[in-house]
């Protein structure tokens, strides 16, 4: 049976937390936390999910005048397998909702969602039977951007808000950095906890 590493314990409210010094984590993993956050927040690859007119502003955000590449997000991917953040740009119809959910499910963890514009965030003026009243009914949304459509600067501000969220949030469980499979087999864990 492999020796249990003290700082890597499964997370519940009473046990020490990975990388959280106040709860008994280690110094090394605190730095890893910061490194992971820096790496993630500076290479957010968006998924092109233009559904309507907001997509035009999204395109102009990546173009040379506003240049989202300055934030490490220039690589817009047409496949969910290579994307980190889904920018839902435009009104989400009820017919499109299952497609959106499927594409969200195909994105690898960790993943984030920016809901761009009034229609994606709340339905906007389209309070009718055809439009989903807020994309958060289908996928969890991290940042909402109001506007019809939001200007490129407003979208860049939202990307910055998302980066800020990634930097301030602690990596609280091992599974979030993908070490759990390597270091802690599930059944061994239950033995220790029992």
């Amino acid at each position, binding site marked *: 049976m492999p020796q249990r590493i003290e700082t890597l314990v499964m997370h519940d409210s009473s046990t020490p937390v990975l990388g959280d010094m106040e709860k008994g984590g280690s110094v090394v993993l605190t730095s890893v936390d910061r490194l992971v956050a820096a790496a993630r927040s500076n290479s957010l690859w968006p998924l092109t999910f233009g559904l309507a007119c907001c997509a035009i502003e999204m395109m102009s955000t990546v173009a040379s005048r506003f240049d989202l590449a300055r934030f490490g997000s220039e690589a817009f991917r047409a496949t969910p397998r290579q994307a980190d953040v889904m920018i839902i740009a435009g009104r989400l119809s009820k017919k499109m909702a299952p497609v959106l959910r499927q594409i969200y499910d195909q994105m690898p963890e960790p993943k984030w969602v920016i809901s761009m514009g009034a229609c994606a965030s709340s339905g906007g003026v389209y309070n009718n039977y055809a439009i989903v009243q807020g994309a958060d009914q289908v996928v969890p949304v991290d940042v909402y951007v109001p506007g019809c459509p939001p200007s490129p600067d407003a979208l860049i501000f939202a990307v910055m808000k998302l980066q800020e*969220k990634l930097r301030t949030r602690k990596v609280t469980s091992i599974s979030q950095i993908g070490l759990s499979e390597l270091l802690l087999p599930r059944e061994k864990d239950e033995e220790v906890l029992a």
Partner: protein
Amino acid sequence: MSVEFFRDIAKPVVSGFGITARRLKHRKVTVMYPEVKREQYPRTRWRHVLKRYDNGLEKCIGCSLCAGACPARCIYVEAAENTDEERYSAGERYAVRYEINMIRCIFCGYCQDACPTGAIVLQKDFELADYKRESFIYTKERLLEPLPQVV
């Protein structure tokens, strides 16, 4: 080193980089957004502000015309009577509650056009993105201009 080499390889490479070199002389178009904010156009419409008169009274008289004009139905106004003891606005009534659902608003500016007293004005603050849906309900406290400083 033949004619074919210059024609097929060297010349296209040189002329290709020539385009790049000419581009280097052009003016930089990128707006370095968080540090430098571009000048907004004169009629840009973003975040609403509820205005006051110079004496501190609110301009809004709670008539709900803005709510009626709103195509997205994102404004809610609840009015009450002014009394001589408690006077908030210049008219007979004032808005007790004035809420805008900023995430449903499409910033069309119809509320500004409809307002008879010029109380609601769409200004140019576009940095409105946030994490929670609840935080987009802008209450009267958030929309109202601060009281003018008494000199």
